[in-house]
């Protein structure tokens, strides 16, 4: 039953894509909407029957269909994967409905690409096989590329190309890493397999140097996708140029492919590399948090601001994961989901403004509360969700991420030997303040203050007209359809904020399984100062002998 559902999750969007291709163009949006709703229903059923909520196991456990070369077309996910699947399927219908008025031409392609995108994203979260994972992971680029390149803003061409090439370049290295592990495994075991669990098991028994390099390879692609700090420059551009629904999915789910990849592949496969590079990665995360927060501060384009804030936020997320303890990693997974919800919602809100005023420039807009109180309510709501107000969804993840980083100090009182420590958390914590700063500046410019509208965009007369003021047939304030999109998001945000316990309880075992190999390595690292080079490696002969060993 479960495997049928998981297959259905993949096939339904594909079928929908086919149907959109065949059906008349005016039906495209309806097919897309109902298909995504159907997929959401299926994913709910999948989650309902999912047995791994309490023990972190991966289900369904079927071996899958072999398709040669040891590749198995096998589907399954752990609790984290299921949550991300739910996030994806939840965001998709909202993104679809949100596109009704925003996209007016080439509808068939638009919705068709989205269906393919959904299939690919679900494929990533459902993959149990490295090749299936990688294929789906790369395939997400294609629909997104076209969505940006066709439906994007003025600079869509360079943005889409950069998006595609940059992430593709990174993931080629990931593929190299995966194939390296698989090849080594094939040499050792005598048969090829790409089963993620078996590869991880094998890879974590490789020599330290190899794990070190494999980890770098694996991380390369995910770091670009996440994106970690110096590799983030494609994101603001892509977000800025993507159509609203594209931004929602990009922020909501596509970036999570990277974090999920780190969680699912990079960390468990090469724990020694993970430990060895931990500090460096944490520093990058923190740099990302602080630097991009400061960059957000000086943005004029609200969409770019939110895009940069994504980089900052994902810095928190990755920092939590790299704290390598249950608290931080659980918080990190929470953060993945909540960032998807709140940032996705923010992009929707911005899209609604953009549809009305055709600008995202905060210098041209202002005091929209007067014009659009309902929109402003949602904007403020999701902004506060985004800056981690307790009681809303963002808080608990952020708090746990920071806490995980904080307690991960070498001689930890809490009995968690870790590599990071309070100073990392203190510096990262400044991101909390900076986040408040730039998000409130955004609110101050956009929502509050004296009313400012771009010249010529002002609807007739004064006051809160409820007539159809805009040429697009959009009311001054939000339409029922738009409110209908935002309310589910708000409800989910609030619900997670007020009762995160079930999610946390489901995440914790999965996370612990993923990080199972870490405590002993961390302990050794803390003791010796390095895993790759033993403490006595100052003796040149040892240093020389070490790589030679690893080659064997």
């Amino acid at each position, binding site marked *: 039953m479960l495997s049928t559902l998981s297959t259905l999750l993949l096939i339904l969007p594909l079928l929908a894509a086919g149907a959109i291709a065949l059906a008349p163009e005016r039906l495209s949006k309806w097919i897309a909407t109902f298909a995504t709703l159907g997929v959401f229903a299926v994913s709910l059923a999948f989650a309902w029957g999912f047995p791994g909520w309490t023990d972190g196991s991966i289900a369904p456990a079927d071996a899958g269909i072999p398709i040669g070369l040891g590749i198995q077309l096998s589907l399954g996910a752990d609790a984290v994967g299921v949550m991300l699947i739910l996030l994806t399927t939840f965001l998709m219908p909202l993104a679809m409905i949100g596109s009704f008025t925003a996209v007016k031409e080439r509808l068939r392609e638009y919705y068709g690409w989205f269906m393919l995108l959904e299939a690919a994203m679900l494929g990533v979260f459902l993959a149990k096989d490295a090749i299936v994972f990688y294929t789906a992971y790369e395939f997400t680029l294609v629909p997104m590329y076209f969505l940006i390149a066709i439906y994007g803003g003025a600079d869509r061409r360079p943005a889409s190309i950069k998006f595609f090439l940059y992430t593709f370049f990174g993931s080629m290295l990931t593929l190299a890493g995966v194939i390296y592990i698989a090849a080594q495994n094939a040499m050792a075991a005598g048969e090829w397999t790409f089963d993620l669990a078996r590869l991880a098991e094998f890879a974590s028994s490789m020599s330290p140097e190899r794990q070190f390099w494999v980890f770098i390879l694996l991380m390369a692609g995910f770091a670009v996708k996440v994106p970690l700090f110096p590799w983030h420059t494609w994101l603001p551009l892509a977000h800025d140029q993507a159509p609203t629904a594209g931004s929602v999915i990009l922020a909501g789910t596509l970036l999570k492919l990277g974090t999920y990849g780190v969680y699912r592949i990079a960390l468990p496969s090469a724990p020694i590399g993970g430990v060895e590079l931990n500090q460096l990665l944490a520093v990058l995360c923190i740099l990302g948090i602080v630097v991009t927060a400061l960059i957000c501060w000086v943005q004029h384009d609200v969409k770019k601001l939110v895009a940069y804030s994504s980089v900052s936020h994902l810095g928190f997320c990755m920092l939590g994961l790299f704290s390598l303890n249950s608290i931080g990693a659980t918080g990190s997974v929470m953060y993945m989901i909540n960032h998807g919800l709140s940032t996705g919602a923010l992009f929707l809100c911005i899209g609604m403004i953009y549809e009305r005023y055709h600008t995202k420039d905060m210098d041209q807009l202002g005091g929209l509360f007067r014009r659009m109180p309902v929109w402003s309510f949602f904007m403020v709501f999701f902004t506060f969700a985004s800056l981690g107000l307790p009681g809303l969804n963002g808080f608990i993840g952020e*708090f746990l991420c920071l806490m995980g980083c904080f307690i991960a100090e070498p001689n930890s009182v809490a009995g968690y030997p870790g590599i990071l420590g309070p100073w990392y958390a203190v510096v990262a914590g400044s991101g909390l303040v900076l986040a408040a700063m730039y998000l409130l500046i955004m609110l101050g410019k956009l929502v509050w203050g004296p009313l400012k509208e771009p010249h010529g965009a002002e609807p007739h007369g004064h006051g809160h007209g409820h007539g159809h003021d805009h040429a697009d047939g959009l009311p001054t304030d939000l339409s029922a359809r738009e409110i209908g999109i935002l309310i589910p998001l708000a409800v989910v945000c609030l619900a997670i904020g007020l009762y995160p316990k079930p999610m946390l309880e489901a995440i914790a075992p999965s996370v612990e399984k993923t990080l199972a190999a870490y405590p002993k390595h961390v302990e050794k690292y803390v003791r010796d100062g390095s895993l790759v080079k033993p403490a006595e490696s100052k003796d040149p002969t040892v240093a020389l002998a070490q790589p030679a060993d690893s080659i064997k």
Partner: protein
Amino acid sequence: MLELASISNLANLTPAVIGEAASAAIPAAVPSPEFAWAGLILLLPAISAVLCGVCAAMGVKNKLPGAITAVALLAAFATTLSLFLKMPQDAPRVIHLFDWVAFAWTGQGATWTSFLAPFSLYVDSLTLLWMLFVTGLGSLIAIYATEYMEADVGKGYARFFGSVSVFLFAMGSLVMGGNLILLYLGWEGVGLASYLLIGYFYSKPSAVAAAKKAFIMNRIGDLGLALGVFLIWMNYGTVEYDALFKALAAGGEGATSEWSKAAIPYCLMLGAFGKSAQIPLFVWLPDAMEGPTPVSALIHAATMVTAGIYLIARTFPLFALEPHALTVVAIVGCATALVAATIGMAQYDIKRVMAYSTVSQLGYMFLGLGVGTTFGAVYHVFTHAFFKALLFLCCGAIMHGMAGQLDLRKMSGLRNVKGFGVISWTFLIGCLCLAGFPFTAGFFSKDSIIAQAFASGNPTFTLLGWIALFTAFLTAYYTFRVWFRVCGGPTKYEPGDEMHGHGDDHGAHDHGAHDHGGHGHGGHGHGGHGHGGHGAHEWHPHGPRLAINGVLLLICAGAILAAVPSYLGEMQHQPNWVETMVSHSSAAGGIPSHDHAGGDHAAHHALSFTGIADVHAATSVVASAAGILGILVAVFFHLINRGAADRLRAALLSNGLTRWLPLALENKWKVDEIYHVVFRLPAWVLGHVLHAVDKQIIDGVVVNGTARLPAELGRLFQPLYNGALQGYAATMAGGIALIAAWVFWIWMQGG
């Protein structure tokens, strides 16, 4: 007897010793599911907030949101009261409502294997004390606001009351929450409410900026609080008060590194300083006066800003572990008290004077905590809540009646204006309390703090005590400066410029709409708002009606009655009511031994020049003297000889040596500007630089450069593709020739 005394004195010298003795004394909490209805105290405001939101969405055009909120808050107050009456106060009660944040792991060698922060209430006498005045004042001020905000009915009315409800919910969870995470929820929640309410007049850029500033300043404090929570969990494996106190009593097993324990109070302190506007982070509070006055009264004077004191009182055992932490608190508190009082002396906006006075009084409270009298601090919170709320509400009422006039130079003798009588006299009561006039509530509470500073015998604290006395003098002066200027003297006034207050913002941005609204509500003088600046000739002040006057009287009564516990305590020679309450709570460690045996030691105390043996008595006398002196100075400068003040200012300005003094005071010691230059500006510049680096170097050079590399390499060979057939042929033939050459000469020869 002598020995005993010296021992107790020694004990007073190092708070750490008190703390350890006291933390053991905190009784274990009793799980009390039977009191689950206490959750109503949180639920009611939450429901009210939701209903207000519904009202806003439905576009309700009457006072329904106000009514809902007032009723809900009154009900919450009633619930609190009944909880207070019904709940035995021998031990704290833990009321588990539902699991909030909770998960566990196997740990693999970790000491702590779960993170639990249930949505539970930790109710002890401290909680009850706080909640009593929070919900009590909250409901009163909500009632006051139903009238005060009536110009906004149908516009921001629901938003206002929704935010107030959110505030009450958040404040409730801050105070009643059974763990630090819930406290953090409340902590940030009140920040949100504060943000929304300060920015209530959202069309005013200054209000928006003030709201932003408040939230961000608070966020810095919140970060400190969060770090403190991390440290606490790291050391004790729990964030729940009950378990924490147990762990502390057991000596904090699991704690291995001293620094991490020692850092806890400093982190928490930062949070408290942020929320309670103490010295590094105090600049937001005066700006917060951009909000509607009831908000200033409720949030920025009576309740929210005291959260810092609550936090330290609640986690007092942790502070007691670190010997220097409380000293730091005391120094910061005292410094804030002095600085804010000096600034308050030179302000002309009466609301700002009150704001600085709040900062100053909060400084007193921290001083009280620091010198080791949680009782004094809490008592001062309690009395201050009443009299400062009263003062703000009076300011608000004046502003309401005077079309937003807040400048004390432009008003005089209001006591004689019709309709302003209640305001003037309740204002006077509030001022007396604030000035620490003998036998008012403020006198007792402030006195208990200053006395403890002297009584501790610690030279640092003694110095702080002197500063506090000086500050008391300043406080009395600036308080009565306001009163004499506004209510005393000859009757003279001019209306506000409509740039302050509730009605004006709409006037500012939406004249047409407001004129409509204004006339619609006409009949009681509100039309004057509508005309505002345009029709000053027709303008005349109007006094408040029942809701405002009634609330003023009620709170005035509260401010007076707040002194009653002290009277009772003095008369019956037993700890007063507030002290009892505090002593049953986690802050018990900070209550000095109350036997008057200290008197034996009197010969050494710093106030011995008064000839009074009892430190408390001596302090009372000296402090009263300081207060009365301050009032007298104010009488001279602001009632009898108003010109003298200006002359003094001119004299100071003309002298090069003293020139800085009035300028510094009037410019608030330029703290905002300093912060701007030291923190904000560099960060802003850094942001621009980083943006440029990000765009030009990381993206431009590294990323695009990498991407351009193949293209540039290709461009190297581009001249070969000149389009001429023979060019290609030559390349091809040359290639073939070279390959052939390689094959024949190298490959085959080599083979």
